[in-house]
């Protein structure tokens, strides 16, 4: 529609969504992101240093959403480096590798770490999505079954979960789309229930009106 506008953002803005990917070191968080954003896969990727950041637009139901994806370092020593980035997230992707049971067991820890540092309101339903990466591994190497994953998700009231493979590009797009759809569902529900906004500024509160900003809902009055 506004193709002629060079180097300018279209006046009609996309919805910006901040996505944080969490999970043990080595489950393939960066690979998932790179597969999703640039459709590339590097067999010998490095440990992420602190955080990585990429942008990607997705179209869902005719709307364009810009995902701002923060890929975090899973190693324990990076904990204090990654946690500051949790705040203001719209979506949290919890990842594990299907051939790595400890990484699956750690989902609980990751979820709690996220909830603590993201400062999400206790009762708020937060759009978590669980992604079991490395679904390409041979059956004999698999340590976590699909059933276990869905059981865990049910126990933790997480409705979105999917197995994917960054290596063979299976379900990667779907995982991210699923996440956005999940967010949308919660958002529309929240919109219906949302109280009139008070006139103070609460940086930690997620304001649906401020989805446009890359930063945490910084202001609204």
């Amino acid at each position: 529609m506004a193709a002629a506008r060079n180097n300018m953002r279209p006046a009609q803005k996309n919805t910006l969504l901040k996505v944080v990917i969490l999970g043990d070191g080595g489950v393939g968080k960066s690979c998932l992101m790179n597969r999703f954003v640039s459709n590339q896969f590097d067999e010998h990727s490095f440990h992420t240093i602190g955080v990585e950041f990429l942008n990607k637009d997705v179209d869902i139901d005719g709307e364009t959403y810009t995902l701002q994806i923060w890929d975090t370092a899973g190693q324990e020593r990076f904990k204090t480096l990654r946690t500051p980035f949790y705040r203001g997230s719209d979506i949290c992707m919890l990842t594990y590798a299907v051939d790595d049971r400890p990484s699956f067991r750690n989902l609980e820890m990751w979820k709690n770490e996220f909830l603590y540092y993201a400062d999400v309101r206790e009762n708020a339903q937060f759009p978590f999505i669980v992604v079991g990466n490395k679904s390409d591994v041979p059956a004999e190497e698999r340590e976590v079954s699909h059933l276990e994953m869905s059981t865990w998700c049910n126990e933790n009231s997480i409705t979105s979960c999917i197995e994917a493979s960054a290596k063979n590009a299976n379900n990667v797009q779907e995982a991210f789309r699923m996440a956005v759809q999940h967010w949308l569902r919660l958002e529309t529900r929240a919109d219906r229930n949302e109280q009139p906004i008070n006139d103070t500024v609460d940086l930690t509160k997620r304001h649906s009106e401020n989805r446009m900003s890359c930063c945490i809902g910084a202001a609204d009055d």
Partner: protein
Amino acid sequence: MLRAAVSECNLNGGVPRTMPRVRRRSLTRNQFRGIKKEELQRRTSMYLASMTIDELYAEILYEILHNVGCDVNYEIGQTALFSYAQDAFKIANDKHRRLLEMAEKKEAPELLLNVEVIEAKDLKPKDSNGLSDPFVTLFLTSNNSHRYNTSVKTMTLSPVWEEHFALPITSSINDDTLCLEVWDFDPAESVKEKLGKIFEVKGVKGMRKLVKEIAVTATTGQHENELIGRAKIPLNTIPASGMTMWYSLDKKNKVNRQGVLKVRISYSSEKNNQVAEQEHRHVLRIILLHELEMSKVAPYWWCGTFSPQGEQLLTQHIAQSGLNPTEVALCQWSVFAGIHQNHQLSFTLFSNLLDKLIKPLQSNSVSEEDLKLFWEATKKLLPSCFSIIRKIRKKSTSEKATMKQVTEVLKILNYINSLEPLPNFDLFPSTIYPWITYHGEGNNCNVPATLNDAVAQGASDWLNHILENNKRPDETEISRLQNLIQIIQLVRSDLQKAIEFYDKLFQETINFQYAKALYVFYQAKISTMVEPEVREICKGLKKLNYTGYNSLTNGDANTDPLTEGTSLFELYLAVQRFATLALGLCPADCDTFHIKNFHEWFHGGVAQWLDIAVYKALQRIEKAVELDKLVHVDNTVKYSSSAVDTLTIFYQVKVFWQQLNWPDVEGYYTFIAKIIDDICRCCVFYADKMSARVDGMGDVQDIYEKKFEVTNEWCLAINNIDYVRETLEPFTRDLGMEEVIQKISKLKSPVEAQRCQHTLENVIANAIDTVRNKIIELLEIVVAKMAPAMKRLLIEGAELCNQDSNSIDRLMMYVDNNLSTLHRELNEENFNRTLEIVWDMLSKTLCEIIQSNLDKRRPPSFFDNLRKTLNLMLGSFKNPADCDNCNDLKRTEQILRIHGLETADLIHQVHLDMADHFNKIKDSPYGEISVRCKFEGNTLAVEVMNARNLMAMDSNGSCDAFIRVHLLPEHKFSEHDKPKTKTHNKTQFPLFDEKFVLKLSPEQRQIEDALLLFSVKDKDLLGYNNQYIGEAFLDFKSIEDTTLPLTSLPQIHLQLSRPKDLTLDSVKALEYRQGDKQAKEFLKKFKQRMGS
């Protein structure tokens, strides 16, 4: 105290007895004749053990009676000395008298005159070889028969003897003279031997001498030593403390000097050396205590100066006991060190003594007994030295005396350190030095280690004192943090002082790195103090929620996370500054210090600090926006104060970051990403606050209507945000991005560094984009506020175009004014953005107007007027040329134009659109036709040549085609026939070859967009219902105007086509004209052609 010390001297409290005298006959000290050595030692130790004050006093009185030396101060007089001694020894009058009588009765002391013949120079040659064979004869004139000779030094004029002699003084010192004679030795040689020397004779004088010698030898037949010269020294010119002098040698009848002789002369006695030393130590102690008592000299002040009486007593005792300087110094060392324990003396005194002692001590020329005494005394002295080191902080560094004292102490320690301690000697017993950490094998004599411990202990004592004094009543985390900060600051200033005043001193004097030793101690202490505290606090940091800057006023400063985080950061900076000191103080070791990785303790705090930085930034931004008067900062810029303030606020974040100076590369990189994100958040916050600030401005109401005026404030708000946005990128570059990427490249790998770089660039781009979004949002608000007026202008223009209307003028003025304001106030980029939004808005508005008015079946003139009004309005835009870039608006305008056409024109528009469309077709299923056309003047000649591949229309798979030629627009060529070819049956490749000539009017010829339409049909058998095959267009403009015959012109091949659908705008517009018969009819036919 002093009195007690004196009574201690009265060793056994024994009865007075005469002092045994051990006489020595030999010239050398250590040889005794007559008495066995064992017996001597037994007696000595007996005496030493039983010596009493009275005996010592009697000895002193005796010495007063027999003062020696030219330097005796006769002004003092014996009486004064007696009275001084009596006071010092605290002797009652009657006892004094008794003892004095005893002393007077004793015969005069047997003093010895010690003479060391050292060397001679410039002696006159006496031998024929131009040299001499000198030796020295010495004697006292009172006893000139008793002569002493040195050895003979052959063939030299500058002999060195270094021989000692002790001459008993028998007569009165004042009358006697020491005589020194230098002789040339002449051995008994025969004349023949002497003649043999002729060849060695040097010069004429030498020859003459030899001849004379030979003559003498020949006449007397015996040898004769020849006097070179003599020196006479009256004994009363020799001071009691002795002297070393060059004496010139004279000879009777000779005026010239015969040479010079160097001798050392001193007095001595035949007293037993050990006894003499012991006596001297006692006397020294008694006199010093007495003097200290009398003069009330301050601690650490006495530096070796006695009263003249005291001085004379001591000098006499030294002289009359024959103590040599080393022995005296050792006595002093021992006595002074003892007294020092109770009454501190100046360290300069000790250091000067060591100056004298160090050589004898190092060269092992001190007796074993003395050596032991020396070390015992040293052991007494050292605690006080280390005490000075430990309590160094109690001294004012500004006083010269302090520095002097420390210097002397260090000198002493350095000397002691240079000495080999006694075997099995514990110089630093742990009972006296409980703080010593050195526990080597056996006894501890390690001076440097002890010094290090003393320094550390001093620091430790001081630190404990500081900790005690800085205890706080409340034990909140914040007060604990502030306490630590204060302590680190104090420690740092202590180190600073150490560096400034003492370090050089320690290094130069004793080669000890004082500041470094302190640093090593402090860094460990600080680490153990700070680390657990910080780690604990970091774990429990409370989250920070920004709820507007007014929320602060009711916060409790002691618990609020802001104060706590700030204190924690201050502590970080304090520790950082402290840790940095290591680089200067001990660069080699700083890697080994625990404090080196202090930042790890604070790891958990960084996120909190970043939050605080944002928190404060938001607070200040909010305030800045509130205080912004919304006027240009100055004439050259288009932004107002809050933009500048916001940049200052960002700058403060940068300063924070630079202060943090996070050493860990990975952390550094990650935190930069966070800061950029945070700054972006601040920008958005600013944008929101700014837009809230100007919201409601510009809404005006006059008698006509309520409307919105674009105000300078609005423009400033937009410019402000843009100004802030522009600085985002340079700001982030300033955070040290490039450096950290380079470091990652080195530490990890270039690939990883590149990824990090991409991330940072993405975050920046994203931030910039987001803020740009905000600007657009604001611009949209402005445009949305202007939209109603613009919409009204368009509608009124459409209704009333070409009529003079105040309303339109007013609206035009409104649009014009607002755009002028925007153009003037906004920068170009934002103005262009605004225009784009305006166009966007306009095209949407127009679409609405068009739609609603189509629904109302407004006549074409309405839309035409609307279009004119639009163009009028676009004309008032400042750069309307750019409007062409806006496809939306262009298309809307196109639609508007179509709707503005009268139906006949609209129908032609359909044809034009179709022609445009058909001419693009390359391969048609309906077939193609070939024609030739030309104009000659106003005459149009058309030759329909043939058709090919016509679509089979009949059941036999063929067709019976004919072509009709139309001139369009139809209503402009109504008087013309529509020529038609013959029908060619049953062929899909008919050859028509028919020519038509049409005479047009000049007006018709000039119609710009006139078209030729070739309509190809299939003739129905009955002729009623001809079937439509397809059609082709040729516009007048592509037809040549020529006089050449038609046959010479190239054939024109036209693809046949059919109208496809109803999507053309012109067709759609026709469909809206429901009430229009012409439109209706055309559409009916159009649809027929589509459907066939």
